[in-house]
């Protein structure tokens, strides 16, 4: 495992995350969501041999086992890029905010300040899922190197404080883990280009493991303040059976904050 190589990608992401949309380049080198890399470079974990395939394993209680380390497959730059015409309909409030963020070159992207990315945004780093009957945890290598908890043994509390990750509860629908998240603040962005959301955002994630080597995630964004109707995107990640989550410290030597000047 080459940790140094991994760290170089951190720099690439931090350094280029604001700049790339400005110059209108397309950093997406993979499908469907894409991963930010220098031209010609491939992320080290993707140089691993293809995972063994076959049917998805199951846990002792008979559920599909979603545990594992998964390559990032998120829509890092633009979560809406594969939507068909008409699927995305911003409210006037959201469109104005989006255009302001574009005009400002994503200067105020909270990710640049090492703030959490929230429940719906994805970055180019692997994630690790840990599954138990009552609690499922997702460890993010990026996303400020934090974790999310998905509770399977309770509903949403009534007096939720709005926060970065929101409150996530899950249940099984056949072979799919359905995760329902509310209680989010309005301070995160859905992607680098700045698709907005309000604190009324309701995220539904549907995780399935179609085979041993892949995890599929369908995210539905339902936010009546920002979008006139809900919309969904699907991301499929490959398993990384011989990989480990590496330490990622967004704040370490993050000198760029004061250089992100926008227009």
């Amino acid at each position, binding site marked *: *495992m080459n940790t140094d190589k991994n760290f170089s990608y951190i720099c690439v992401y931090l350094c280029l995350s604001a700049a790339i949309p400005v110059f209108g380049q397309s950093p997406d080198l993979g499908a469907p969501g894409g991963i930010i890399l220098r031209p010609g470079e491939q992320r080290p974990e993707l140089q691993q041999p293809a995972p063994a395939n076959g049917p998805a394993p199951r846990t002792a209680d008979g559920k599909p086992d979603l545990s594992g380390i998964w390559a990032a497959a998120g829509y890092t730059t633009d979560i809406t890029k594969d939507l068909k015409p008409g699927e995305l309909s911003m409210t006037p409030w959201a469109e104005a905010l989006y255009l302001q963020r574009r005009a400002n070159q994503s200067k105020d992207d909270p990710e640049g300040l090492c703030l*959490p990315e929230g429940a719906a945004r994805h970055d180019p780093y692997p994630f690790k899922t840990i599954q138990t009957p009552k609690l499922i945890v997702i*460890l993010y290598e990026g996303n400020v190197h*934090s974790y999310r*908890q998905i*509770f399977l043994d309770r509903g949403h509390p*009534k*007096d939720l*404080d709005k926060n970065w990750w929101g409150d996530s509860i899950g249940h099984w629908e056949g072979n799919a883990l359905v995760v329902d998240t509310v209680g989010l603040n309005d301070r995160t962005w859905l992607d680098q280009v700045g698709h907005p959301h309000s604190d009324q955002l309701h995220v539904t994630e549907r995780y399935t493991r179609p085979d041993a080597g892949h995890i599929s995630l369908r995210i539905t964004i339902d936010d009546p303040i920002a979008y006139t109707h809900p919309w969904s995107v699907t991301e499929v990640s490959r398993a990384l059976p011989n990989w480990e989550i590496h330490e990622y410290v967004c704040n370490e030597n993050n000198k760029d904050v*004061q250089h992100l000047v926008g227009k």
Partner: protein
Amino acid sequence: MSTTVIPIVALSIAFLAPVLAFGQSPVFVGDLTPKPASPVPAGPAPRTPDGKPDLSGLWQRPYVPDMTKTTKDQQGTAELPFTADGLKAWKSYDAANGDYTGSCLPFGLLRSMNSPDPIQIMQSPAYVAPLYEQNTWFHVIPIGKKHREGATPTWFGDSAGHWEGDTFVVDTVNFNGRTRLDTIGHPHSDALRVMERFTRTDAMHIAYEVTIDDPKIFTRPWTNQRIFTLRPDWEIMEYSCEENNKDLYEGHLKPPPR
């Protein structure tokens, strides 16, 4: 979910260094959630399907801002066996000159284990992963693997876990040397080696022992022993150190020089 996270965040960001400089003890509050009360488990330690003691659960731990002190559920080492360099590193530390945690840099393994907030332990046959409420950080301890060779030194170090009977033993090396052992600022170097022993003595408790071995700073290894208590009705809350940490964003506060 209660609102206690906000005062905790504010306290730790704004007052951590000055408060400790004045020797006061900040009050940290555990998070009580509206989850219905679970029956308090009793009896022997539960076991996982593969027969190992099950360390899983949410654990309240003693807050250990000073590893030389002995307090409730914590047995410290009163006199640390400093080397000459170690004593110099300890005497020259002054939180008033800046501490890396004010910039939301990682507490590191030791200071995360010493933090006042609870931890959630996740366990599988292949690894144990403590989730710290402190800054929503986590650490993954692979079981039965060797330390990585040639890896970049890190804030939390490289851990290798194994079972010795019913005790889970964690051997951690390859630290970057930029953290402190505890809030009061006891030093360590990049030669630090940490041995931790987790023993679930019964359903409600883990006996925890940590041994500090750092030949650059200490003439011999020394230990702390603690008791962790299961809190079946608590949940780990979200903790964002970066939230509204304007001193960092606006450049008023810089991490101490390396």
